[in-house]
């Protein structure tokens, strides 16, 4: 083994011996907040994504419109390049669907005749739903146009706010992580003041003196990151037990998914980098004075 590798190994061993486990825990808890928030948001994004993926526009015809008019309108709709898919719902079928709903047959029977119009359910190809809706409303024979996009948009906006909040929280706690590491390393330097001074007198290079502290910051970050993942994992497990019951009552198999491996690795790497940064700032600030 080369002298360089050996010195790195020794510095790592020293850092491991002196690592602040409590500090790693503090970092872990701090990181668990944004990591958990991110995980939940990703889970919700999956739901919102599935729903908002296919916003639909319902086009209702005037009740007195003839079937020929409906066919002509259908042909026009299918020719529109902004329309991906058109499904025709004749008024008889709509009535049948409505009758399947609990309590409705009595209501419909009381009405006597079918009050429902023919309708088209359109899957648009464009994002400009409002423009498309208003254009569709001007077509002959169309009574009303309903775009189901408004609530999906609201959900997306809400998710956007959530993401921003998680981002801000992450930035704030990242700063906290750097500060925690900075202080830990400062205290460690004070504890080892004599050793540092003596080492310098015996011919230690700056790199030799600094190395264990860099490793310490790095390791604390890594440990904190892994703890954060464990906390998030445990939290999700507990949450999913409740979510499962709730989702099943809606006939859904929804669960919050664990973070993908790449995201988990990114969190640990990010924590490691912040730990290193805290150590770097502290070492630069305090070693020149001590040495």
């Amino acid at each position, binding site marked *: 083994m080369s002298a360089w590798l050996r010195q790195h190994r020794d510095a790592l061993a020293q850092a491991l011996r002196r690592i602040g486990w409590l500090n790693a825990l503090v970092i872990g808890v701090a990181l668990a907040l944004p990591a958990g928030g991110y995980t939940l948001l990703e889970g919700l994004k999956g739901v919102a994504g599935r729903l908002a993926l296919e916003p639909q526009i319902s086009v209702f015809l005037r009740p007195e419109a003839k079937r020929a008019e409906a066919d002509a309108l259908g042909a026009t709709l299918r020719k529109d390049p902004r329309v991906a898919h058109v499904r025709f719902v004749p008024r008889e079928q709509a009535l049948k669907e409505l009758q399947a709903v609990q309590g409705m047959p009595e209501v419909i029977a009381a009405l006597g005749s079918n009050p429902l119009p023919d309708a088209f359910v359109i899957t648009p190809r464009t994002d400009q739903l409002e423009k498309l809706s208003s254009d569709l409303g001007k077509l002959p024979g169309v009574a009303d146009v309903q775009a189901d996009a408004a609530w999906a948009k609201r959900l997306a906006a809400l998710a956007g706010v959530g993401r921003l909040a998680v981002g801000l929280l992450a930035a704030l706690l990242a700063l906290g992580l750097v500060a925690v590491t900075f202080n830990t390393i400062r205290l460690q330097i004070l504890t080892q003041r004599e050793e540092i001074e003596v080492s310098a007198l*015996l011919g230690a*290079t700056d790199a*030799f003196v600094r190395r264990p502290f860099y490793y310490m910051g790095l390791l604390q970050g890594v440990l904190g990151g892994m703890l954060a993942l464990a906390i998030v994992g445990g939290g999700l497990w507990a949450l999913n037990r409740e979510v499962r019951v709730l989702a099943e009552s809606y006939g859904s198999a929804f669960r919050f998914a664990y973070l993908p491996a790449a995201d988990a690795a990114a969190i640990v790497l990010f924590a490691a980098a912040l730990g290193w940064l805290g150590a770097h700032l502290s070492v630069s600030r305090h070693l020149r004075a001590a040495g």
Partner: protein
Amino acid sequence: MVSFSAVAKRYPGGQEALRGVSFNIDAGELVFLTGRSGAGKSTLLKLIPAIERPTSGSVIVNGQNVGALKRPAVPYLRRNVGLVFQDQKLLYDRSAYDNVMLPLQLSGQPPKEAARRVRAALDKVGLAGRERANPVELSGGEQQRLAIARAVVNRPAILVADEPTANLDAESAARVLEIFVSFNQVGVTVIIASHDQSLISRFGKRVLHLENGVVA
């Protein structure tokens, strides 16, 4: 080996520790540096491993102009200058063995070779059986000998000691000085600051006497 020419050292507070010191120490010499407290002995010794820098004049150690040495080069100079301090500067969080090991760790010696050298150094200062002891458990004389073992373990060409016998009884002091003499006999250049005239005169070596910041 060590050459001072017109060296002056003024501390930031304005105190003038050295004013125009010139001397030359050849390789393999043993020189005593004497003078009253405050005469500038410690300052002079600190200039050799670049712990302090001269205000003016030049300090040449082993062919290197130490006063102009860049910071990254200083550690390599210090590995070739063994230092023994009046207060020993031992580390009390580790054994005698590990104290002597420190210079070898930071110069990146292979572990087997390092272990061999540590044992040899401890053996030379008469501490072969005490390697597991914490420095606190050692007597004053033993602690000073441990500090010497640490100073020589890197096999430096120069050994610099600042009042190594100041806090020792006569017998321990004599033993410490004999160790320095034995290293000098195998070719190490040795510079010892001391104010103990009676002890120094027993060895009959060259004496540099400092008075008011100049060599008298």
